[in-house]
């Protein structure tokens, strides 16, 4: 029987069995990894962003080592790729894409939205980022430079958006509630 004749569940079962037999990964390790992946969600990245908005020391850590900053708020990063954090500022806006496949900061944002893997998003993000952002309702003035970050290799990238006006005095939980996944890859910006 060839792989083409085997249905995906049987193939998965066979691969898992081989991983165990060759002592590469135990069933428990695989189950743990699936649980961590399933549990990740944009709320985790939102907690990091909200903390960075109110705590300059944490923001400095986040910009220098995103994985350490994630671990500092209890997000499991063992076995995950390094996490780079891109800071938006009044003159610069970052947009994250993976033109080669679907690299996404899953550890802190969970599974990517379906469109993140689409050929249309991947092509247009690098070719016409301003047009793409305008379609998302994120028009950028000429004074703002766009930095498209194409995740091609060993890093995963998330965006630290600017704190919206009108949020003075808000606590971290309330700030975190403003954030959507798109804000943390730069297709949208948060507003209060």
């Amino acid at each position, binding site marked *: 029987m060839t792989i083409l004749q085997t249905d995906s569940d049987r193939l998965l079962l066979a691969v898992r069995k081989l991983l165990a037999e060759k002592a590469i990964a135990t069933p428990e390790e695989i189950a743990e990894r699936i649980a961590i992946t399933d549990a990740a969600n944009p709320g985790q990245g939102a907690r990091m962003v909200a903390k960075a908005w109110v705590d300059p020391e944490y923001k400095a850590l986040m910009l220098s080592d995103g994985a350490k900053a994630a671990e500092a708020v209890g997000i499991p990063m063992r076995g995950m790729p390094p996490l780079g954090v891109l800071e938006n500022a009044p003159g610069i806006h970052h947009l994250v894409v993976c033109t080669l496949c679907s690299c996404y900061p899953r550890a802190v944002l969970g599974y990517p939205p379906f469109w993140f893997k689409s050929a249309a998003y991947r092509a247009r993000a690098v070719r016409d980022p301003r047009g793409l952002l305008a379609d998302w309702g994120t028009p950028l003035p000429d004074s703002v430079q*766009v930095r*498209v970050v194409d995740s*091609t*290799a060993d890093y995963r990238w998330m965006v630290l958006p600017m704190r919206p006006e009108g949020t003075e005095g808000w606590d971290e939980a309330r700030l975190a509630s403003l954030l959507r996944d798109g804000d943390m890859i730069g297709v949208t910006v948060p507003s209060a």
Partner: protein
Amino acid sequence: MLAPGQAVRVKLDWPETRGPCHIRTPHYLRGHQGIVERHLGRFPNPEDLAFARPAAVLDLYHVRFEQKSLWGEGHPGDAIVVELYESWLEAA
């Protein structure tokens, strides 16, 4: 090691025309000139890891490319930043 600000060119090479391969350097950058932003670390070459071959540890850089130089149009100052391995970069 390459220094931030250094001009580099992505090799104009198409290994996919020579046989099975796994490449982390996008087509649209091949042959184009960029500027090194910073060194990101050292990682085993994914082109070998993908085939379970012994993998050399390579320097990985964040390299910036001006939109206009890639596409012939674009807003001045807009750029694309990409992770590239030393094996794909040459002095510009």
